[in-house]
């Protein structure tokens, strides 16, 4: 009966997680139930008592808060570093490393994740500020509730271009759609993505939760992160 683990997953990890999940289920026979959302939203829900066993965040700050507020058993452990990309699916728009193209007239809307709740949004704002574009572009910004909604804005061309996770553009769903460019890693603070084992999991579902949590740091897992563009140290 305990052969199930409920995992709250930051939206950028959803593509990698599909593969992780298949692998883990095959190895252990334990079912993985995935709840997606922005890291901030999931953190809020966990604090309100959501019944999640493991939390895979897009940064270290949110899991740390949970640990400090006694919703997690251990301090958070980084599993990979995220990479930010600039992506467009419009045929007449080719993202460049030099971001001045964002100022062009034909770029009407730029999608980023909501910096209030999504670490990838924070990184995107940081990069725009670094290039002194933030104030000029503020009118063009639209905010996805999480990185998924951001992807959706770019994919449907509702936004002409946008900042998202590299894992997204490498995913099966989006592979080969539009063009993207990786943002220089020194342009933003490293997106150190960490996970924690939650109290709920430790209390109600110890064995499976721990198995899954440990699996996140296994060799096989690391290979999968790399395949989806994450940097693993």
């Amino acid at each position, binding site marked *: 009966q305990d052969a199930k683990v*409920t995992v709250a997953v930051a*939206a950028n990890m*959803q593509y990698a997680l599909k593969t992780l999940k298949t692998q883990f289920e095959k190895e252990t026979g334990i079912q993985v*139930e995935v*709840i*997606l*959302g922005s890291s901030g939203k999931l953190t809020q*829900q966990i*604090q*309100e*008592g*959501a*019944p999640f066993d493991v939390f895979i965040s897009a940064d270290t700050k949110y899991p740390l808060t949970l640990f400090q507020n006694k919703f997690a058993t251990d301090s958070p452990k980084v599993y990979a570093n995220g990479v930010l990309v600039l992506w467009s699916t419009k045929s007449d728009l080719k993202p460049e490393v030099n971001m001045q193209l964002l100022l062009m007239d034909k770029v009407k809307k730029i999608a980023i994740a909501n910096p209030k709740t999504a670490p990838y949004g924070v990184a995107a704002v940081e990069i725009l500020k670094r290039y002194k574009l933030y104030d000029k572009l503020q009118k063009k910004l639209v905010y996805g*509730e*999480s990185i*998924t*909604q951001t*992807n*959706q804005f770019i*994919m*449907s061309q509702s936004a002409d271009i946008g900042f998202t996770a590299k894992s997204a553009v490498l995913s099966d*769903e*989006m592979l080969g759609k539009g063009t993207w460019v990786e943002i220089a890693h020194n342009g933003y603070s490293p997106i150190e993505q960490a996970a924690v084992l939650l109290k709920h999991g430790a209390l109600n579902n110890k064995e499976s939760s721990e198995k899954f949590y440990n699996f996140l740091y296994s060799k096989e897992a690391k290979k999968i992160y790399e395949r989806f563009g994450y940097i693993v140290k």
Partner: protein
Amino acid sequence: MDLEPLWLTLQLAVVTTAILFFIGIPLANWLAYKKTKVKAIVEVLVSMPLVLPPSVIGFYLLLAFSPSQSFGKFLETHFDIRLVFSFPGLVIASVIYSLPFMVHPIQSGFAAVPESLREAAYSLGKTKWQTLIRVLLPNIKSSLLSAIVLTFAHTIGEFGVVLMIGGNIPGETKVASIAIFDEVESMNYASAGTYAFILFATSFIILLSVYLINHRLDRIKSI
């Protein structure tokens, strides 16, 4: 495609409608026949879910249900019940959210029954309860039908509140409206479209049937 969200939506709609049916009848009865000043206030409160943003309703429910707040804490420590992110929590939220859709049609139904019908039953020595069951309800069948169907359909459409207090847990709180949002976000337009189409078609058929049945009942009555 995962049919669980549709199944869950159906369960939620059935349970909510059933509960509201038993809350709605006495409440509508009271509103239709009382003439106190409290009535205006209660009438407004019943209508509030019509005009309040679901996020406002969701916010207050979140405060009420959260185990860190007094009511939620009380439930948690004394009964080991947690309403956020749970099906019972959704049911309570839906009951509040769909309340006006049950109460309003029944109230108009009661108001349309001639007063003399109630009084006739009283003059025959019948209690209010007997009068309600044997005389009033059988004579407002078409209002009851509207109320049930609207409540059912509106519960199917519940979204904002669920998003805030439901937490998208498969098999527990991931209802169809949330699943559609989710699928759209993950760009599975095909399955979003399938969910949406099923809900659209269901609502359309339900609503069309009510209109037609109501017209039929009206005609039968007028003959």
